[in-house]
């Protein structure tokens, strides 16, 4: 090695160090947004309507606490009053409704009395009267505030979307623990959007380094098993570290935010990125074992294997970058992060790794992938099998493809956020308890535009609510019609709505004199031209939620829709919107990823070679989704991204094609060329599959169900791609790619099976 070569290598290392430090500092600026809102598509009409509802009627979302205990006792009532008051003081809580602060209207011998439902120190008679009111008033009946058996109470909190969800959830939980559970009154259960946001953020902050660490460890083990040297294990990780730093740093400097899906990124970059170095190092060691000196080995590895690595890296980055076309910020962030990380790792593998190898002393002992041994024996058997059973392999692949297509038709989408969490997690258990008592914790909000001072419109609003209440999965519904019905009942004893415009206006005027104006303003604008119907729904799978929403919309069209224009929004619809957007992204990114990978793979100087290579990938992707269908795993936030991710990650099959074409160009006949390619590249492909599989397997330690599922399926996918690369791809090459460009003419196919 000349002095100039050594200086060049040191300069490269110094340049990488400087750039990595500079960009890496940007990673410190990264922000975390794990909220459900961060998943919302940019141009969502549902989200736009939600903002309008929030602007006009106040609340951004609700949280519900269910407190267990014997509610109709003076002690519990006192605690409930104290709890409601304390909760109302928490920053971000805009309103609290519970039996502890609810009011009742009474027509007391000509007086319209609006008073606290429960006094601070209630007598037995007060408690009995309150119970009777809660069970009969149109505002509260049906166990809205206190369970019919008196053994639990609901505390409904309206919360602002402008506050830190983790801090808000913590403050609410602390207050509940202190003022109820801590008083020995009973258990508490809390549900609501901010709680989910907070849980997701905490999990994300915990898991990103944890999963990355586990993946790195597993990858280190696989790399060591492959190369049997410490440098063979550490150098690939060095290149990945560079890619990660660059990618996270650029995002930080650009002011981008990490989201729930970002948890996948470090693992994906680690797994994919380490495969680049794995191939280069494999060739480097192979050339050393064949007697070449260090610099010749580096040059050959860079020249021959570097092409496959470059193409595979570009294809992976291109496939991952298709996510950046998504309408959802969270998917875009994942696309930028992973594509950037892969590109950074690719550059480090092609530039930094040779420089480091050039400065390090050549290892004393190297593994020759072609030397006889267990793996070589296995690859020999594989090559023989692929040669002799090429048509049987292609036929079996066809049968598997058909089966996979059948499985794909059985896939059910479900992107419900609640299903991110384990079925036995405390959060899911709390949801089950609260939804059972309250009827639902998700919301459908119906924005009603029309003349709401018109009795017929209000009558149809009530009819709409009554019809909606019969839908399975729907809980309590409230609107200005509910409030007016309660006022009218109090004033006239008639369980219905006022029948003239004057009655409506004047009963509301009377209420404004004595009651809380917010009770009206949260459902009706001052000019009576806009109204809101709140419908609680259970947090079910998105398929069930879609069915509930369809039923609600049908009920709306048949009743209230005859008198006013209806717009639907709320947390339930937002989740469906996210799902629709993901489905769109899924189709776009998968199609685009396939096209891009074919185009980039054709840089190996043969479009046909690219098509043959991607055949193995397509089969495994079909198998992935077939498995989803047969195992009943839903198509969710993560599994929708699986296809494009797998297209990119699985493109290491190109290394076999590249090597096969290299052997064909050197004059070997197809069968001999494939045999040689399998012997030399097979080991790297095998260990790439094992390394990638081990890396993705780290995701099974995640608390998020979709991330866990993604990890298992990606591990399955890379192992499938490995199997297909060693069986289907050789068979396909021997049938469809006998004479790639630049190769010696091949004799006619010899059918040996």
């Amino acid at each position: 090695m000349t002095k100039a070569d050594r200086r060049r290598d040191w300069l490269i290392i110094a340049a990488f160090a400087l750039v990595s430090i500079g960009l890496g500092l940007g990673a410190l600026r990264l922000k975390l947004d794990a909220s459900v809102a961060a998943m919302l598509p940019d141009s969502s009409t549902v989200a736009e309507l939600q903002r309008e509802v929030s602007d006009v009627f106040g609340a951004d979302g609700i949280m519900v606490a269910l407190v267990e205990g014997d509610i109709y006792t003076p002690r519990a009532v006192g605690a409930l009053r104290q709890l409601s008051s304390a909760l109302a003081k928490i920053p971000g809580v805009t309103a609290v409704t519970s039996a502890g602060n609810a009011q009742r209207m009474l027509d007391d011998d000509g007086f319209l009395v609006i008073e606290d439902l429960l006094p601070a120190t209630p007598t037995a008679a007060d408690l009995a009267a309150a119970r009777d009111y809660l069970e009969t008033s149109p505002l509260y009946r049906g166990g809205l505030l206190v369970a019919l058996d008196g053994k639990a109470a609901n505390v409904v909190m309206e919360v602002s979307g402008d506050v830190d969800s983790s801090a808000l959830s913590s403050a609410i939980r602390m207050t509940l623990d202190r003022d109820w559970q801590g008083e020995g009154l009973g258990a508490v259960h809390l549900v609501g959007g901010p709680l989910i946001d907070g849980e997701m953020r905490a999990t994300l902050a915990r898991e990103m380094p944890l999963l990355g660490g586990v993946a790195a460890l597993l990858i280190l083990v696989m790399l060591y098993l492959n190369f049997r040297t410490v440098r063979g294990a550490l150098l690939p990780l060095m290149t990945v570290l560079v890619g990660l730093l660059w990618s996270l740093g650029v995002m930080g400097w650009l002011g981008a935010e990490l989201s729930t899906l970002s948890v996948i990124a470090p693992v994906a970059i680690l797994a994919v990125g380490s495969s680049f170095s794995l191939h280069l190092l494999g060739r480097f060691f192979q050339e050393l074992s064949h007697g070449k000196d260090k610099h010749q080995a580096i040059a050959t590895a860079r020249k021959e294997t570097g092409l496959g690595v470059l193409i595979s890296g570009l294809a992976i980055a291109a496939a991952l970058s298709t996510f950046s076309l998504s309408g959802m910020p969270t998917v875009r962030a994942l696309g930028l992060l992973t594509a950037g990380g892969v590109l950074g790792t690719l550059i480090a593998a092609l530039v930094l790794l040779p420089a480091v190898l050039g400065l390090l002393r050549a290892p004393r002992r190297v593994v020759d992938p072609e030397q006889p041994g267990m793996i070589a024996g296995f690859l020999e058997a594989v090559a023989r099998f692929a040669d002799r059973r090429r048509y049987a392999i292609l036929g079996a692949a066809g049968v598997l493809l058909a089966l996979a297509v059948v499985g794909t038709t059985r896939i059910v989408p479900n992107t419900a956020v609640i299903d991110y969490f384990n079925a036995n997690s405390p959060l899911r258990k709390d949801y089950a308890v609260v939804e059972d008592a309250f009827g639902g914790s998700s919301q459908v909000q119906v924005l009603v535009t029309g003349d709401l001072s018109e009795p017929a419109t209000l009558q149809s609003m009530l009819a709409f609510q009554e019809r909606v209440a019969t839908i399975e999965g729907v809980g309590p519904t409230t609107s200005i019609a509910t409030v007016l019905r309660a006022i009218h009942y109090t004033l006239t004893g008639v369980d219905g709505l006022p029948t003239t415009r004057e009655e409506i206006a004047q009963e509301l005027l009377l209420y404004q004199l004595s009651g809380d104006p917010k009770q009206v303003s949260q459902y009706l604008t001052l000019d009576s031209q806009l109204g809101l119907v709140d419908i609680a729904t259970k947090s079910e799978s998105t398929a069930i939620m879609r069915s509930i929403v369809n039923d609600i919309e049908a009920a709306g069209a048949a009743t209230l829709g005859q008198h006013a224009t209806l717009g639907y929004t709320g947390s339930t619809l937002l989740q469906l919107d996210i799902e629709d957007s993901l489905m769109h992204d899924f189709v776009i990114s998968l199609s685009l990823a396939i096209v891009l990978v074919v185009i980039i793979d054709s840089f190996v100087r043969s479009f046909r070679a690219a098509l043959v290579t991607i055949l193995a990938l397509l089969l495994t992707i079909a198998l992935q989704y077939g498995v989803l269908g047969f195992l009943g795993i839903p198509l969710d936030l993560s599994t929708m991204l699986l296809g494009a991710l797998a297209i990119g990650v699985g493109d290491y099959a190109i290394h076999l094609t590249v090597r096969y074409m290299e052997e064909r160009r050197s004059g070997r006949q197809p069968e001999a060329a494939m045999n040689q390619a399998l012997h030399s590249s097979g080991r790297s492909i095998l260990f790439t599959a094992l390394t990638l599989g081990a890396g993705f397997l780290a995701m099974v330690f995640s608390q998020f169900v979709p991330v866990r599922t993604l990890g298992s399926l990606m591990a399955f996918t890379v192992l499938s791609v490995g199997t297909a690369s060693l069986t289907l791809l050789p068979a396909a090459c021997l049938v469809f790619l006998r004479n790639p460009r630049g190769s010696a003419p091949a004799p006619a196919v010899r059918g040996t099976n």
Partner: protein
Amino acid sequence: MTDPRRPTRRLVTTLFLALLLGGAVSAQRYTTAAEITAAMDAMPNPSTTVATLRMTITAASGHSLTRTMQIWTADEGRSQLIKFLEPADVRGSGFLSVEQASGESETMIYLPALGRVRRVAGGQEQDAFFGSDFSYEEISSLSGDFGDDFTTTLLEVQPGPVYVMEGTAAAGSTSSYDRIVYQVPEATLIPRRVEFYRAGELIKVLTISGTVTVGDYTLPSIIRMETVATGSFTTIDQSDFTLDGDIPADVFTERFLQR
């Protein structure tokens, strides 16, 4: 149960008395908060008032509701009648508040659509006045008379001169606010801006942006109250004053309320 006859509704009366405070004030400079407060207290009150009020409540979203009312007050605000003129669906509705000898007010409302007079239970001092941004408590402070609830100090004198006063909650204060800051122009001695604070946070801002002179009285004509947190505000525009006129005694009766 809350006493339905509690005198909270008297504050409605106080509002309109406060609005009517005024008088020909010659330019002079006060040097202490006590002097300014005394001067404000010394302003003459009309014995009776008849006026038209236009109250517009505007939510942060821009949706608004305007109601026009006619108001009669007598006995230094102890008797008060409000009749709604607009919008059409509340026309004829009325609100009567008469202070009894015991000091408690009897408050009743007449709603034509319901066909009978109803007595109305008292709310809290902090309750919204007819669903507006004004609470009864704030209405009572329009005159700058913060009663025994606040200890006032003179913060500064701005060009005009305009006195900037600060009131801090006195011991035993029943106010929901612990601090108020108000500006009083020497020319009118009617506060032109009042800021209401609770725990250091600005809760509401009251602005009097127009005055009108009727006879010997200078009266606020445009009053605005904004709730800072919600962004909603209410504007009261008063006009067509008849001051110190004869108001028949039967105006402040249940029978007239229903007429």
